[in-house]
């Protein structure tokens, strides 16, 4: 028997009707007409002025001339294939993971997980033969935020477990750490990592970029810990009890029953953390590290590009916007219920 699909939700409007509804909302009732008039009174002259500036007065050549700097900083051109290969591999891996998730290919998913675990080492192995002082631009921004989230994730899970531990001392120490870090700004943590870290490990002079990564990791771990704690609290007590009834030890119950559920529930908020980390890595520019924003500042310091602040900052802002907006769109798909069922 042929089945007729039943339309769900409100009746579908034709495109013309939708536009008519849109237009109607601008003028009905009377205060909407007033609002529209006020908006247009500000928007039209403002938009016109910005448009004229962007076309007539802005000198966008500063962007084209420095495109390489914005992408990889002073990374030697002969070695530019290294970050490029890393990028292609990452995109391929992400696409593969997405495919495995959508198709619920259990074996492929395990392969993907294994590859993701090996991924930081692979990327580092590809990019690292060039001195870090030559790294820059988007490359540093992406590496710092990806490295930060990968390193802070296990630390955050440990802190969250510690905060819920039955052992009083562990609980107090973990809680104190989390609250201390969450109470102070990231800049202060980054400056501490830059200035104090060398004092704590005398004899060694840790790389500037590494110090920034340590600061970012220490900071993000506290926030991830709070996310994970939320996920742990969301696992019903019955799950623990069922696990114990099956004869699992507390450690087994945690690793096999509770954590998988908790972590799956916090996946979207971890993705949100990654997105805000991507923005926050721009703070390393204050420390003189040439990430995307740092490169923008150093380009503007060049006498040839004096007075191009608006052009450069708008361009860099657009790059950040594209990255974070597309990531947040992608992460919204993580919240879809079909990804939370069992993967066969």
């Amino acid at each position, binding site marked *: 028997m042929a089945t007729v699909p039943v339309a769900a939700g409100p009746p579908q409007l034709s495109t013309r009707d939708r536009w008519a509804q849109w237009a109607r909302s601008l003028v009905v009732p009377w205060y909407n007409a007033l609002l529209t008039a006020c908006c247009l009174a500000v928007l039209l002259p403002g938009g016109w002025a910005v448009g004229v500036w962007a076309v007539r007065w802005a000198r966008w050549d500063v962007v084209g001339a420095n495109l390489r700097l914005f992408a990889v900083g002073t990374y030697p051109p002969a070695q530019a294939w290294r970050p490029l290969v890393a990028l292609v591999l990452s995109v391929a891996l992400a696409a593969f993971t997405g495919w495995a998730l959508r198709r619920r290919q259990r074996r492929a998913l395990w392969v993907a997980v294994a590859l993701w675990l090996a991924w930081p080492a692979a990327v580092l192995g590809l990019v690292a033969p060039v001195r870090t002082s030559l790294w820059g631009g988007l490359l540093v921004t992406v590496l710092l935020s990806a490295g930060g989230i990968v390193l802070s994730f296990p630390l955050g899970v440990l802190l969250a477990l510690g905060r819920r531990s039955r052992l009083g001392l562990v609980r107090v120490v973990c809680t104190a750490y989390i609250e201390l870090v969450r109470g102070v*700004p990231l800049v202060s943590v980054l400056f501490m990592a830059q*200035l104090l870290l060398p004092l704590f490990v005398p004899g060694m002079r840790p790389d500037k970029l590494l110090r920034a990564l340590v600061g970012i990791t220490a900071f993000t771990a506290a926030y991830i810990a709070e996310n994970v704690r939320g996920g742990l609290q969301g696992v019903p007590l019955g799950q623990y009890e069922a696990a114990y009834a099956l004869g699992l030890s507390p450690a087994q119950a*945690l690793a096999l029953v509770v954590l998988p559920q908790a972590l799956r529930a916090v996946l979207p908020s971890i993705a949100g953390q990654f997105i805000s980390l991507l923005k926050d890595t721009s703070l390393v520019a204050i420390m003189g590290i040439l990430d995307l924003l740092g490169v923008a500042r150093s380009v503007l310091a060049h006498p040839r590009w004096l007075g191009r602040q608006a052009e450069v900052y708008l361009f860099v802002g657009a790059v950040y916007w594209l990255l*974070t907006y597309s990531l947040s769109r992608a992460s919204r798909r993580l919240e879809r219920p079909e990804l939370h069922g069992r993967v066969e």
Partner: protein
Amino acid sequence: MRGNGNAAGMAGAGAAGGWGSRYRAWEVGAQALFALLLVLAGGLLYANLVRSLRALGLTLQFEFLSHPAGFGIAEGPAYQPGDSYARAFWVGVVNTVRVAAWGIVGATVLGTVVGVARLSSNRLVARLAVLYVESVRNVPLLLQLLFWYTAVFLNLPPVREARAWLGAIYFTQRGVYLPALRWTQAGPALEVPQLVGFNFQGGIRLSPEFAALLLGLTVYTGAFIAEVVRGAVQSVPRGQWEAAQALGLTYGQTLRKVILPQALRIIVPPLISQYLNLTKNSSLAIAVGYPDLFNVGHTILNQTGQSVPVFVLIMASYLAMSLFVSALLNLYNRRIRLVER
């Protein structure tokens, strides 16, 4: 916060958590081991620190705070370069509180307006609100601050060419001049800034640094608050709207008397965290040269090399402010919370 059940679940079936209960033998051992590791790691780091500081000719003391600072601070409460480091730091704290307080006021107003605008039946207004929220939230705050400061406020016309907005507000390279409300013997009077010679006199001057930081923080946090407000308004059940309309309330009355009082309860906790974020984000003042507590602390650190005490001071200040703001708002939250019987 920590439910009894959670702790019990972690440790074993049926065991009650908390300090009061007795620990099993392995738990005592584990804690002792943890304490030992903690002391060992802490001791090692401390020894390293003292050794490094000695190599630099420094000791871990706060005594330097009474020495004369010797550097100028562009704005804030009364201060001379001859004053002590402690006084300089205090000026920074006051400046942080000043920018954070105004920022909180501005971001709350902006966020509420935009949050309600997102729900407007006027599609243009709703679209514009979405455009604002999505474009501001997805760009780093530091970038926005640098944009406002270097591309906008430092590019304003020089003082003598400044145009009056609404007859009394001047945007110039040297800052923003606003009319001030002053109490005279004849009652309150509006004091309008006047161009006298090469500069304005009267009124209030906001330095470009302060104005850029305040605008950046307001615009950025406003976008997050708008989302908080929208979420809270949407979380009020539709039935409440319909019931209010059935009672003959107008849209404005419905919003004011039915929806917002209910939404407020949901708004307050995330609002607290946005206020705290704004306060912490004001530390980016260092990028635009506004002398907030972090910026002044950094200058003190550069002059004295006393990195550890200065960082202790900075962290303690931010923690104190965080605790103060969240205590205040928690108090308020307790008052507006739904009282069920």
